[in-house]
């Protein structure tokens, strides 16, 4: 549990980067027009953008809960163990949403780089699968093989 608890200091600010990207994605969707209509007015794009926005905001709520726990001397709860993989899930989601709402603009430049790099987020710093193994055994207490 020590590793997991130390993890919470390192991942508490991950929401800053994703929320900035989400705000930029929403702005880009407002600017881009398809058949004369802003993408941000398309019902499907609106659902996708609103969904990724919720995840970004909840990532901040999660990080704040970790920090408040640390400041108030609570033992690390489940919230700190899942912060990293929630973040990598959002990075994946931003990549997919950018492809969906920006179309060919997401072939290149920042959005293109971001789509490629998002794969690293579920690998570096402990893969999502290794994290799930740890959570299952150390947080949930599931038995060893």
């Amino acid at each position, binding site marked *: 549990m020590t590793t997991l608890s130390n993890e919470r200091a390192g991942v508490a600010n991950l929401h800053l980067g994703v929320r900035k990207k989400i705000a930029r994605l929403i702005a880009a969707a407002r600017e881009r027009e398809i058949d004369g209509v802003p993408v941000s007015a398309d019902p499907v794009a609106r659902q996708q953008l609103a969904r990724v926005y*919720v995840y970004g905001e909840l990532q901040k709520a999660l990080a704040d809960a970790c920090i408040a726990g640390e400041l108030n001397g609570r033992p690390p709860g489940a919230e700190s163990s899942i912060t990293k993989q929630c973040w990598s899930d959002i990075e994946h989601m931003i990549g997919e949403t950018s492809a969906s709402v920006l179309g060919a603009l997401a072939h290149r430049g920042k959005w293109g780089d971001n789509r490629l790099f998002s794969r690293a987020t579920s690998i570096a710093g402990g893969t999502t699968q290794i994290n799930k193994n740890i959570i299952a055994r150390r947080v949930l207490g*599931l038995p060893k093989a």
Partner: protein
Amino acid sequence: MDTRYTTEQESFRTALRRFLEDQGGTRFTRDRWCDPAPATGDTWRALAALGVTGVLAPAATGGMGGQMSDMGVVMEELGRVVHPAPCWASCVGATSAAAIFGLDSLLAALAAGTATATLALEEPERRFTSWGQAHVAVAGERLSGRKVQVPDALGADYLFVTTDKGVYLVPTDAAGLSITGEDCLDGSRRFATVDFHDVAGHYLGDNDRLAPVVDRMLVALCADGVGAAQRALELTVAYASERQQFGQHIGSFQAIQHLCADMLQQLELGRAGLHYALWALDAAEPGEAHRAAVMCKAYTAENFPQIGATAIQVFGGAGFTWEYDIQLFYKRLLSLQITWGGSETWLEELATLVIDREAPPITADA
């Protein structure tokens, strides 16, 4: 600022959990599954004596004068045993509405548990978010029209009804009013269709005065979901730790472990949203409280049914039997999914709040 529950709130939770377990836990609900009669008997009176029914009522009317964060604890514990009592409708919805309109004698009765009331907002074939642009028509202070998905209307004493002229208070024994129970796969909840045929009502004020009440209801429903999902995860881990296949506990298989880890991730992200929303309802300005409530319901409605579905997958065939409790929790989360608007409805509402504005609002530092 810490948005998690306080030590006092956790003590209240412990007392309430013990009481609900003494009442039989989920057995209490099983005995009343799909029962149209309201669960307002001895247990309800005991809940009132514990202060549960009056959490949100002002102290001057016999309540606790509490906040939504206090009510969050109550809703989590009721969700944990899929309790059928009309707390969501009456102790959150009607109590908050009665406070807004200054109905002190009704507040006193709701706080004491001697009366229950509910909110009749949704109309047939209309998005839930249109509750303020109601079609129930008022002519000469008399209401005509139909409301659907009204929680705990059967057995309630009063209805708060949105109409084309504003909010009306209608006693359920009024002439021309009929209440018909709606079938629901979740037998722990009771919804009804309410028909008004020239029913006399009492005008209270504009529809939009109920907006903060709707936000409270959304978040309280999510708190119920957190309680139910937490219990579903506990039951799933316990079952996986005990059930054996191929000579091993199934909980030792990575395939099962990862499913359980997925459940925890969805639960904890939802819990983070819940605590932020409870804080926002109690301490932030109304616009921020609304945004937080909408995010909370959008996330929970979309993800918590999946927690229940994963639980059923881990239980395998046992999850389909009446004997195991896990199906009760799955059903509670499935009804949460679409009660008072599903995730599509609330994501669209969120889109109007954040995408259609020049500078999308950001989550405050609680």
